[in-house]
């Protein structure tokens, strides 16, 4: 640990990854607040924005900077066990093997939550997701009830995520500044990862926004 503290500061999280992260942090509580305060217009808008962000993050998981790519942080069970035993070798910049799976779980849960919301309808039949016209009232209601329950799974995953941050903080590693500035101290002699050019993020954002817009319009032009 002491040796790592002296490592050079390298860029780990690119700007798009950080924007997506903090936008999700803001929009999930906002979605909850608007849903519980009868502001379904704003709730839908928040959901569409999250849909765009998650779509962008999926694209970025294949085309983004090295630490943001799924292939760089989704590791097999052996790597997870090695990490837990402390025999995984020097950490690479980015998510550790357990953190990677935590990211996958959160992204999947949020994606599923958005998908459910698109088909949901409230008990009065009035407030509904843009794709609810594709399913029956009973199906739509069943999905809405899962939508309510899944929220608490997301809260649980977010709480676990914050606990992990606090755990590393207690062990002398503050992970939060890296998600704000993008820079972290390199461990050992880790090399700075290759970051994707910003223009690629602009293209990915346009594609994600277009798909989100199309879905929000009920799959109609």
């Amino acid at each position, binding site marked *: 640990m002491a040796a790592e503290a002296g490592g050079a500061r390298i860029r780990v999280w690119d700007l798009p990854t950080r924007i997506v992260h903090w936008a999700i942090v803001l929009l999930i509580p906002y979605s909850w607040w608007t849903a519980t305060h009868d502001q379904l217009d704003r709730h839908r808008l928040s959901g569409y924005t999250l849909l765009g962000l998650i779509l962008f993050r999926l694209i970025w998981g294949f085309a983004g900077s090295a630490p943001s790519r799924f292939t760089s942080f989704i590791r097999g069970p052996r790597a997870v066990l090695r990490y837990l035993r402390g025999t995984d070798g020097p950490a690479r910049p980015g998510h550790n093997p357990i953190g990677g799976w935590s990211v996958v779980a959160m992204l999947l849960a949020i994606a599923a939550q958005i998908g459910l919301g698109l088909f949901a309808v409230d008990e009065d039949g*009035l407030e509904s997701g843009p794709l609810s016209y594709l399913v029956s*009232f009973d199906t739509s209601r069943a999905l809405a009830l899962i939508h309510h329950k899944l929220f608490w799974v997301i809260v649980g995953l977010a709480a676990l995520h914050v606990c992990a941050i606090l755990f590393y903080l207690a062990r002398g590693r503050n992970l939060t500044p890296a998600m704000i500035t993008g820079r972290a101290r390199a461990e050992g002699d880790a090399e700075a990862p290759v970051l994707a050019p910003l223009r690629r993020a602009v293209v990915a954002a346009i594609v994600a926004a277009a798909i989100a817009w199309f879905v929000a319009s*009920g799959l109609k032009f």
Partner: protein
Amino acid sequence: MRQLRFAALLAASTMLLVAAVDPHVAIPHRQDGMKTMGRTFKGVIDQLKTSSPDAQAVKLGSAQLAQLAKQVPGWFPAGSGPDTGVKTAVKPAVWTNPGDFHAKAAALASAADALAAGAARSSDPATLMPLVRQVGGACKACHDAYKNPDH
């Protein structure tokens, strides 16, 4: 004396009516009715969301909804409350605050009538959606006051 006998008869028949309410029948009947209203209402809204609504479907659905809305007060007989052991989301306030409950049910009935009247003339979403929102608002006003949220 005659008045007294009438009052006694009325009381007895009311008690008989209350005793005759089987919550195992009345509560599922209410729930079926509400779900049918939800399905019917959603059918109308789904049509109005399309670029060319089926005028006949909108008209029929709205007329059915208006008929169903009139039945709502009858779905809440005394003895079908939350204390029967049969699972229900209804709040006891339906029976402790009957004036307001019936006012809200009447508001739904008149909103549904207005939608049915509108749908008989037009299937234009721009014309009907404000009426749809009135109906949805009437549903919601009553649910907020007299129904526990679904879990």
